[in-house]
């Protein structure tokens, strides 16, 4: 009994010795292993699979047929649906950024101590909590051509009825406006936490120097909000590029496909009711992936630069 304990103790002792020597280097990896595994299986490997599929013609069921870059050639040369989707994505990208100044404005407005401010804050934050599907439904009722609240409001000012979601020139903007509602709330909450971290001494000092209003905001507050702005920028860009649910709920890509974006087009081609073109869908996904990668690389780069600067 005693010898057994001793020998096993020796063995663990040796192992512990090796582990002890490398503990600092190893421990983080041990913690990371489950995450890395899942990330590889569900994110990294599928990315390569998508690229692989995008060089094939495949209906998702039968055998895959190698077609080289034919999918990309069609996509980039004569596919009108792709053009529409791409430019709609660009519209989303720019207009969605309005959520950042809007969120900042509301955050500044709510960053005061009056009775019931927590309630107001929660009310402003509310749209971010509810599901995008609900947001989409609420806004499509709001836009309804006859019964909708929007047209009732317009009628008060004597303006004619508009059918925003039925007009190919307006529908995308209508959906973006709906998307801005929850996104503004998200940016607002980021700025509210940012404002908590603003150094009161600096504000005090600036006030002594006679700064107030716009100057105070621009030269004193905003620089301190830079981390919040950065995060707001990241989530808004990513949010704009992956817009999908609102489009699906509000217009289903219509009228006549004028509200498609890349992610919706990919879904239509490969997974929807009439979609049997996995290869083509994958090619769209790859294009969208590189578009996102461009932004993500920029974000990572600027984060790395900041980290380096801080060190």
């Amino acid at each position, binding site marked *: 009994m005693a010898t057994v304990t001793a020998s096993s103790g020796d063995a663990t002792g040796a192992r512990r010795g090796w582990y002890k020597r490398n503990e600092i280097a190893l421990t983080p990896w041990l913690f990371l292993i489950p995450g890395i595994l899942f990330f590889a299986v569900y994110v990294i490997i599928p990315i390569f699979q998508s690229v692989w599929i995008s060089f094939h013609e495949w209906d998702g*069921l039968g055998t895959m047929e190698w077609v080289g870059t034919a999918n990309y050639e069609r996509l980039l040369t004569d596919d*009108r649906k792709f053009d529409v989707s791409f430019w709609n994505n660009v519209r989303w990208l720019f207009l969605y950024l309005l959520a950042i100044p809007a969120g900042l404005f509301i955050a500044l407005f709510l960053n005061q101590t009056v009775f019931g401010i927590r309630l107001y804050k929660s009310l402003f934050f509310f749209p971010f909590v509810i599901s995008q599907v609900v947001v989409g439904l609420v806004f499509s009722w709001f836009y309804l051509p006859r019964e909708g609240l929007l047209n009732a409001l317009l009628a008060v000012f004597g303006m004619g009825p508009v059918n925003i979601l*039925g007009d190919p020139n307006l529908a995308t903007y209508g959906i973006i406006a709906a998307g801005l509602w929850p996104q503004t709330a998200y940016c607002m909450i980021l700025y509210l936490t940012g404002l908590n971290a603003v150094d009161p001494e600096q504000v005090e000092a600036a006030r002594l120097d006679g700064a107030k209003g716009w100057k105070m905001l621009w030269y004193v507050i905003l620089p301190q909000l830079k981390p919040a702005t950065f995060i707001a920028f990241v989530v808004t860009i990513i949010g704009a590029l992956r817009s999908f649910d609102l489009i699906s709920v509000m217009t289903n890509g*219509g*009228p*006549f496909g004028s509200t498609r974006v890349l992610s919706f087009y990919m879904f239509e081609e490969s997974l929807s*009711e009439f*979609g*049997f073109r996995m290869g083509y869908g994958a090619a769209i996904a790859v294009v969208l992936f590189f578009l996102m990668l461009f932004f993500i690389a920029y974000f990572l780069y600027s984060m790395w630069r900041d980290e380096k600067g801080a060190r």
Partner: protein
Amino acid sequence: MNRTLKASVLGVAALGLMSTSALALEGTLRIISDMSNPAPRAVMEGLAAEFDEMHPDLTVELEIVDREAWKTQIRNALSANPPDVVNWYAANRMLPYVNAGLFMDVSDLWDEPEFAALASTEGAMTIDGKQWGVPYTYYQWGVYYREDIFNELGLSEPATWEEELANCQAILDSGRKCYTIGTKFLWTAGGWFDYINSRTNGYDFHIALARGEVEWTDPRVRQTFENWRQLIDMGAFIDDHQTYSWQEALPFILEGEATAYLMGNFAVAAMRDGGLDDSMLDFYQFPVINPNVDFAEDAPTDTFHIASGAQNVEAAKEFLRFVTSPDVQTRINGGDALGQLPVNANSSVADDEFIQQGFEMLSNNAGGGIMQFFDRDFPAEMASVGMEGLQEFMVFPDNLDDILERLEDARQRIYE
């Protein structure tokens, strides 16, 4: 409910005597069904329970999936852990699954003498000379209209295109719209195209177009759109229809703002629920446009199939025999169940004004042929591109040239 139960028990007894006593089925029969609306759901659950009761050693496992969701789920369901029996649709809609080898060839069932009674749909179930499933119901399309408004304006059911246009003008003059329609999900526009094209150029031309044998820029296709445009230019359709689903377009006819609806018979239940009784609602066959072509009618067929990966093939085949037998078809298509048409020629048709009229029309007045519907006759991809073009045409008829060129491009690529 009690009545249904009694009927089921009688049905079980009758069937037990007829065919199934010889077979002792065992194990589990897994069915995935898309009959998710309240009435069809009750029918499907009844069928499963009944079949389960008929075969003491067999357990029937039924899973009901939302009808719209099933359209995207069926591929996964059939390829990973396939059930024994599934619901789907006839004609081109089943082509991808047949080509991928996911549906089982059931030609041997169709060789049995009982299946002669289903001959009317054999064509829609046949690909490469084999049959890939069985039909359980079909329903007619036609123009449902407000009889009371027609009476008020002194109009009668139109038989020709001229009468149709004259009626429509009278309706417009009374401050109403002629037709309600909701094209948000596109397929409703396909119904209008099916009818105007088949009335203008005939069934054979329509099917040739569906098979990709005719150019979309063909003058005959243009003629179809020109006829359609007569209605659009008059303002016959409700405004903003691209924003509504077919259900959201119903209030227009319920409230009398629009007078007619070109739809499948499934809309009758919704209109009755909306307060239209049979004195206010009636039905007519889409009128003649070109007197030289015979009537062709849209009558989509809904079907059951056996997955090629089915575990319990014997039980699955027996289930298909069960759902196609005359008395089961009579019961499930009855006015208190699906309210549609039985496919089996030996079944009786429910005593309902619209089902009777539809049956009469399809049996005696559809000499041109039976179309399955735009999104089932055309290949999936052509259907989706096509219906988007049809919707655009209904809103901006001036874009026709551009739309037709786009469809022609798609045709050349898809049917290559």
